[in-house]
């Protein structure tokens, strides 16, 4: 199940469509990091609305994407985290390190268009 990555101007949008295996997640990370370099993107949005679980591997991968794209000058925003998923994540002791989050894609794009501090 490959994750489609859309290039929209200076941004990349990865829309996860269904549950992912660990291999799929690793692939997504590689793809995003690769494309951020090629396109010199300013931002990456990962839409996780379709995911009903963010376990430790998924968190680590999302943080990894944020970290590696930051080295290339891009910021990562994760959009569409289900509230139940957010609750569970914190209860487990997990954190989305270095990752900005918004409710949906629209807010995610708005975040990039706001002056950053």
């Amino acid at each position, binding site marked *: 199940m490959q994750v489609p990555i859309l290039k929209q101007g200076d941004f990349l949008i990865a829309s996860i469509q269904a*549950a*992912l*295996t*660990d*291999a799929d997640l690793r692939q997504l990370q590689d793809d995003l990091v690769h494309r951020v370099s090629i396109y010199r993107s300013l931002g990456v949005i990962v839409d996780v609305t379709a995911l*009903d*679980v*963010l*376990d*430790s*591997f998924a*968190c*680590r991968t999302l943080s990894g994407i944020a970290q590696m794209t930051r080295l290339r000058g891009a910021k990562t925003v994760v959009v569409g985290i*289900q*509230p*139940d*998923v957010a*609750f*569970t994540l914190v*209860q*487990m*002791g*997990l954190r989305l390190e270095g990752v900005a989050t918004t409710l949906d894609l629209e807010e995610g794009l708005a975040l990039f268009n706001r002056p950053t501090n």
Partner: protein
Amino acid sequence: MAAEARHLETSVPILADIDIVTARQQGRALAERVGFIGSDLTVIATVISELGRNMLTYAEKGVIRLRPHYFGGRRGIMVVAEDEGPGIVDVELALQDAYSTSKSLGLGLPGTRRLMDEFDIVSVLGKGTKVTVTKWVS
């Protein structure tokens, strides 16, 4: 109210990472049948994911058994993750936050313990590991 679902026990062999996805989907479905709602469903799916991944990472393979659990008027779900891998050298240590032998986050086991109502682990070096966890409908 969910009818009793005692007969719905299932067993998912974990041989590749796609099996983790299958196991957590089956776990969520069973949990719904048992009567769980909301974030409890997410909790159960997440725990299955953690236990399944540990099997693949540390024991190469294993089995996850999902079982409706009725006891003392309560209903719940029991998840048993059993493998014949190398076992865990120091279980106490493995249950501590951020302890990992694989450069991973080390939150799988302690996080699972926090999320579930009952948690039991038996690990014998050279024999394997069995983690048994239960969550009750609140």
